[in-house]
């Protein structure tokens, strides 16, 4: 005899497998997945495979491409290849947790408001007010005042990007709450939390996941910008934005030094966007099939 709830995990797995298969079936999805996977892998193993110590300075500063330094050296004689490989670790260590926290709190607040709360109007106007502030300026201010430590940057990022998630989650929830199956659950007398977890979330998760991927790519750009301005990561920790800032001073002498970190940022962001697009399409196919059948 089948237990009712027991199939659920298996079904989710099947669905996940379908989505992955779809993403990998189209070129843009394949490219996106490959770029993101390569970056994640590199972030994990780069300290082991980097040819030089990222902080090790040498007398050979601002060298071009050579057999010893494949991508040359920077103004302090540090190996650009090693620093580029390791450079995403700080960024990802901050933006991934921040994206997760943003999705969680923004999603929770959005669902709560979307179900029709008295606070809805007030809270959403506040959210809009915060969104209206140019976030990079605000981040700069916070970081300048409180120092650019992880303990400051993660909550700040999570707060700002969570506001956007709130909007998406609230809009989605409002749409779902008007659907008859949610009305039916309310009329039946289901507990509100049960309605959220059984009726709303399974239908909203897709949107939030796709949205979360996009938020992550925004956060990466924002963090690199902070570092570029000298507020994100403190030297000698390698970080792409900071590397670009350093190389900027010597563009006339060593024009190639800025290229590797720039390419790294671009490839990661493009990869994330392609991936999130493909996941969105994969899930969209799902909804079209449901409607058409």
């Amino acid at each position, binding site marked *: 005899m089948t237990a*009712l709830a027991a199939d659920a995990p298996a079904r989710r797995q099947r669905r996940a497998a379908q989505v992955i298969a779809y993403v990998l079936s189209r070129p843009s999805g394949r490219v996106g997945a490959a770029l993101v996977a390569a970056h994640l892998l590199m972030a994990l193993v780069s300290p082991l495979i980097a040819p030089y110590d990222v902080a090790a300075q040498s007398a050979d500063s601002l060298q071009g491409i050579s057999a010893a330094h494949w991508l040359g050296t920077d103004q302090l004689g540090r190996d650009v290849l090693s620093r580029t490989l390791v450079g995403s670790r700080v960024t990802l260590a901050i933006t991934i947790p921040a994206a997760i926290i943003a999705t969680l709190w923004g999603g929770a607040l959005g669902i709560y408001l979307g179900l029709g709360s008295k606070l809805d109007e007030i809270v959403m106007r506040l959210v809009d007010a915060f969104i209206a502030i140019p976030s990079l300026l605000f981040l700069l201010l916070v970081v300048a005042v409180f120092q650019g430590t992880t303990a400051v940057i993660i909550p700040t990022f999570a707060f700002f990007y969570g506001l956007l998630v709130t909007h998406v989650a609230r809009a989605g929830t409002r749409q779902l709450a008007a659907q008859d199956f949610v009305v039916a659950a309310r*009329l039946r007398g289901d507990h509100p939390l049960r309605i959220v977890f059984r009726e709303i979330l399974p239908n909203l998760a897709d949107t939030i996941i796709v949205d979360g991927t996009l938020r992550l790519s925004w956060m990466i750009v924002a963090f690199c910008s902070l570092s570029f301005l000298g507020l994100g990561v403190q030297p000698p920790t390698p970080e792409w934005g900071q590397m670009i800032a350093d190389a900027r001073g010597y563009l006339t002498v060593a024009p190639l030094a800025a290229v590797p970190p720039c390419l790294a940022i671009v490839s990661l962001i493009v990869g994330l966007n392609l991936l999130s697009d493909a996941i969105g399409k994969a899930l969209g196919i799902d909804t079209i099939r449901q409607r058409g059948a």
Partner: protein
Amino acid sequence: MNASPLLQVRSLSVGLRTRDRGDLPIIRKIDLEISRGESIGIVGESGSGKSTLAMALMGFLKPGVERLEGTVLFDRHDMFGNDAVTAKLRGGAIAYVPQNAATALTPTMTIGNQFDEALRLHSSLDVSERRGAILEMLADLRLPDPKAVVGRYPHELSGGQQQRCAIGLAMAGQPKLIVLDEPTTALDTATQASILELLAGLAERTGTALLYVSHNLGVVGDNCGRLAVMYAGEIVEEGMTQRLLSAPSHPYSRGLLGSIPSLRDPGIPPAMWGSPPAISEHITGCRFSDRCPKRRDRCSEHPMIGRSPIGGGVRCHFPEVGPAAARVGTERRPTRDEPVVTVRGLSFLYARPGLLSRLTGAGKAQPAIQDIDLELNAGQTIGVIGESGSGKSTLLRVLLGLHRPSSGEATMLGHDLRVPLARRPLDLKRQLQVVFQNPSSSLNPRQTILEIIASPLRLYFRDLDQDAIYRRVKGILEQVRLGTRYLDRYPSQLSGGEKQRVAIARALAAEPRVILCDEVTSALDVSVQAAVLQVLSDIQKEHGTSYVFVSHDLATVRAISDHIVVLSRGRIVEAGPANRVFGAPEHDYTKMLLEHTFDPADIAVAA
């Protein structure tokens, strides 16, 4: 007059070309001819391919859809030949009126300007001549005060007036053929009738041929000389309307016609069980055979269209002769005098929304209801009829506790129904269940049928263990005539009628005394409506459940109700036993509603 037909369709197949599954035709080898000035109807249920055919006649295919074979000749032009010629014909010699007129009108242009544009493109009149012509046309469309309408924007007109304008714009190019896709489905019964009459009049005067595409036999039955019935992408029968409707030869046509409830002939019409095949299904034999009650061995061979006994064409090896069998109306049991719900003087007046909701536009007006009296007995069905905006749905929402009544009383089994939902005891929620109009939105797409029906069981009967729940769900599915194989399916894998039966099963699982049915058959095809009614009636017989059955479809209400309440503008204008209200209506509004209801019995009598 030219002797050649106006439109000639030869062996036309249109569908999807897939890499892995070959060609998947949506319409298959359609042969059709339309003469000049003729009116012809194409009837079919959702998924029959009728809209695809209508589009293809104009040389138009949806993205991804291709012409697989065949030709469409309009006035000897190949509609799939020269794109420039086809584009010129469209909007000129062939005009199209969509289901929703609002989408055919440009929202940012006044009605006058839209007519002017159409005339500029399709006539050689100068500015002042056009102005006169426009006023004349608007008068022809029987729009009140044409001079005022000229300066209005589409959103300032009612749905019926918009549809009139869309028809007028279609006529502006002096077309030889107008294709009408469900032209009146979105409109009220009375408006429907007047628009169809208008169309017929205009077409006759100008000699325009009309092609109606509809799921509604009433619309085509009253307005078309000739009829083609489509099923699963094929024309299964065609012939003269009166003859076809009074003595259909194809089992599907017979079933379809038989499943329409009649006002004269109360009781639930025989249901057609099952559902049409999906386009991806490969069927070598007759495409209707798995639903056909008269299936024989030879039906595994695909039938060609042959001459039908009534002089039309029919795609069946064993066409039937004579009028469709008389329906076996299910007699309604007398109900006990045991009130379950009592409503006295119940009113819900439009509440002025607060400042915030006005600012945000969140406060949506609900039609008010006033002084409603109802008494629902055990095992009884009260039918509530009225047009849109009459307050039918508001009444249900008040009973459900979603709106707080402004005055009056409502009780159910000792519970006060004025109590808002949040404060209602669980037992009251269990006893009063609801089934909604739209089966697609009433089932969670991420839950299996098993989970959906188990939800109320878990909530209301906490002592049931997993096994007991599973057994009960199976039992309930059988009551709504869905087998165990549906347990693990998702709503997306079910047809509309099946979904609606699952929604009924979910309500039934609560073992309620009363089920409120809000237009439960309106979103369904005719052939499956009867199945839903049958299920509701069976449940009532077995459990003594009472229904409040709200619908704008009078014949459906007639089929299932003991007692009728007619609502107009929020007030009860007439109430009484079903036989009395339908047999001898007293109020003018009821008479008007009855007059505009299509009844297959009328056609049979006329023929």
